């Protein structure tokens, strides 16, 4: 079970949270102007990276606030959590193990 740091409440167990998928996918301001492909990409296409992934989490059984987390999908290490609206942090010094070197369990 992950240990996530809610930016408002502090560290809590994963069971208090709800994951909302990839972060920083803003809803288009005027969806009507998007062609079908662009709208489909907004709706369904996700990066699904091996490595650092910015994702939305909600402290559902706590304060109820949404925030973002930067998580390494290989090790599950959460490098940083940050408030909604804040830019994705630069995690170049995060000391994430090279995915190629960590055998997936």
């Amino acid at each position, binding site marked *: *079970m*992950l*240990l996530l740091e809610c930016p408002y409440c502090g560290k809590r*167990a*994963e069971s208090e949270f*709800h994951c*909302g998928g990839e972060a920083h996918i*803003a*809803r*288009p301001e*005027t*969806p*009507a102007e*998007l062609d*079908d492909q662009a*709208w*489909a990409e907004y*709706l369904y296409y996700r990066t699904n990276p091996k490595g650092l992934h910015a994702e*939305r989490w*909600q402290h*559902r059984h706590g304060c*109820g*606030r*949404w925030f973002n987390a930067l998580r390494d999908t290989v*090790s*599950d*290490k*959460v490098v940083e959590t940050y408030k*909604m*609206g804040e830019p994705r942090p630069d995690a170049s010094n995060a000391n994430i*193990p090279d995915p190629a*070197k*960590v*055998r997936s*369990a």
Partner: protein
Amino acid sequence: MSQPFRIQSGGHIDRSKPISVSFNGKTLNGYRGDTVASMLLASGSHLAGRSFKYHRPRGILSHGSDEPNALLSVDWRPEKGKGRRDPNNRASVVEARNGLKTETQNHWPSLERDVGALNDILSPVFVAGFYYKTFMWPRSAWEKVYEPVIRRAAGLGEAPEVADPDRYANRHAYADILVVGAGPAGLSAALAASEDGSSRVLLADEGFLFGGALLNDATSTIDGKPAKAWVDEMVATLDARENVVLLPRTTVFGYYNHNHVAMVERVADHRDDALEGLARERLWQVRAGKVIIAAGSHERPLVFENNDRPGIMLAESARAFINRYAVKPGNRMVVATSGASAYRTALDAKAAGIAVTIVDIRLGEDCGTELAEAREAGIEVLTGHTVVKALGKARVTGLIVAPLGKTGGVGTRRTLECDTVAMSGGWTPSVHLFSQSRGKLVFDADIDAFLPGQSVQNEVSAGACHGIYDLSAIIADGAKAGGGSREVTASATFTGFQPVRVLPTDEDPKKVKAFVDFQNDVTAKDIKLAVREGFESIEHVKRYTTTGMATDQGKTSNMNALGLVAGLLDRPLPAIGTTTFRPPYTPVTFGALVGPSREERFEPVRKTAIDGWAEAQGAEFEPVGQWRRAHYFPRSGEDMHAAVNRECKAVRTSVGIFDASTLGKIEVVGPDAAEFMNRMYTNAWTKLKVGGCRYGLMLGENGFVMDDGVVARLAEDRFHVTTTTGGAARVFQHMEDYLQTEWPDLDVFITSITEQYAVIALQGPNAKKVLEPFVSDIDMSEDAFPHMSVREGFICGVPTRLFRVSFTGEAGFEVNVPADYAAAVWKALYEEGRKYDITPYGTETMHVLRCEMGFIIVGQETDGTATPDDVGLSGLVSKVKPDFVGKRSLSRPDILRKDRKQLVGVLAKDPKEVLDEGAMVVDDPTAPVPMPIAGHVTSSYHSSNCGRSIAMAMVKGGRDRIGETVWVTTPKGFTEAVIATSVFYQHEKESIDA
């Protein structure tokens, strides 16, 4: 049974507390501090079970949780009746106490005489992968012959026959440092970690005594003290520290993300007193700042013919039985080894009066000081010898050994008579937990072992599981892991071994049964066969042969299997890799995992304020989500059909009363509330007047119907939104998500008021007459309070939000009152309603009535792929609003296709026939399979008001097919039906506004 093999002094047993346990109906005697295994050995017997596949007699292999053979069914409290027996307990770790009732497994009619042993003779049939090879054809034989037979023979131990009556506890804890294992490394680590008093330290060990391997050690000294005295001193020091919690009998079985560690504590089974209410086991979930793994190591068996005969055990285990339990495993022992540590067993055995011979696969020049020490003690040592086979069946009677030639040939045989063999094929560090933590293993050829490499979480391994075997070094390593340092002077440990996978033999290897995995009965021959058949990946070999897949997780067998495969493929061992270690480290009871979450605490039942009244009225209930709802209210002699017919008639002819409290209710408040509603629902809300209601339709961003419900505008800036019962939480979170993440600029608050308001629906021509006498501060006249409006006032003096709405097609009201007053208001309305023969009705009648009117239920007519147009609700979709959630998706090409399924009515040709919900609708029942499917039935009932059966269906292009004949599947075939509009009931006059 007496204890002829008990040593008269020494050991960590309490001779002042004699005990007895039942073993296959016989009595075993022993002392507190014994395990069932040590008591069995004290009686002079090793026979402790039959093997899984071949039903071979098996003895006790080990003294710890890696035991693969001696699996017992244990009834922990037979005096308390059934339900306290569980299977597959390892005799070597079952802490003995008066009253335990134990039985061996996997034999019939008895342990000594087992019909299943026939499998041993038929063993050429049961080769690796025999399931895949044998039970191929004929196909029909699978169901009738093979599967029933295999099911009977498969599995180990008998499942309990009644529900577990014991209580299991659950605890969450935080530790700055969790130390796993209380051997020399763990004790040393815990001491260092807790030194300055600032860190909270948990020390857990699966055994009932702390000390680990030092408990088996009668000769070593640490700083001049006997090993056990050092242990006692360490434990006393730790126990005195406020910041240390000692947890014996606690197995750390799972290492999960972010140092979330699961362990199970055996709380009650060892206690003489059966305290009422005391939990049997406790599941600990620990979040640790740092984990120190000091889990020790497992000894490897030697692989030679008949190496599974009772009396053959691991060398360190023989030493444990002699020194810790004061039991002689036998009178004549051969120590067969490929390494140094077993010499200590030989020396201790000799000191205990056992006749000992050592057979060492290593040449004399490859041995260390242990060789001279053994010979000095008068022990005959045969170096450079292999073990060809063991003699005896129910008990080993001798060992055939032979010298190994320089070129690998096997020389002249010699038989060593014995009743016990202590074998050692070297050591395997217990890297299970490290591997579970997703750390990467690295192979160390010097000690032929996989060791913890790169960490992924904040943990560190210390001691034998870290590949360190010398006692002084282990203690230093533990202290270092604990953040300190400790230098001790301890007796030198005999270390080092020569890896050997299968002992050389001059027998025909095709006829030799030399076991690699004892618990799953996998022999070296099986593994060779798998490799010969082309299995090269260790993960495939493992699954094909089942080696390492038993409940012992291959603790004793994995390295021999890996080494054997590497040798056969002529690849270096690290190139083969290891299989994945998964929790649990040892089997965990379901009781511990479930804990208190069972029966009524498994999933709490939500009850409305009216529930008690409904129960008193004899209502039948049905679960809806977590709610318990009245399904129907049968009168005496009525079945569901009769009750629902009566309830449906009553609502249309007089008045019915219905508990709608489970509806989701959300208050949307704020200056931007209307704008927010505009964006969340398909409808336009700006023009909805205060006091007005509107049926709202909510879509997901993908354009599919997500929820619906009546929305009332209580004020310019306040909406009372209702949702489906099942959708309440989902809709709330959906709104919250958009509000927080997409439109934080909107000044809106949303609040769930589902639990705060109960809803009493009064429906039918007489509804208003029942209601009126109780209402105050609301003008009930038609003009002032029309259909689809809301008023705030009082009912029975209680504040109410009174909705004039209908889900039945009849004139009706939904009375929202604070839940605490709901039962009183309900009773008052019901009493008044008696004048009109008021009829309480349940969810079934509600379903029928709305279906008669063609109203959809989200989740019944819709399945997450239905658009508003699909279900005939395109009129609710605003064409004016530039945007709302889901709007853009409604113009995607596939959403606009003409052949989408559309909501229609389907009437069976036979009006008495009620179609099956979920049944397929087809055009041509004679079409070849796979038959083209035109649609499916979504709702189907008998309607007493229509005098026939009615059904709704989603049918491709259905709205253009009204009047066409289709066929609907039935359990027996097809039945004819006609497509119709989905409104089935027509009022004689427009009654809803009357």
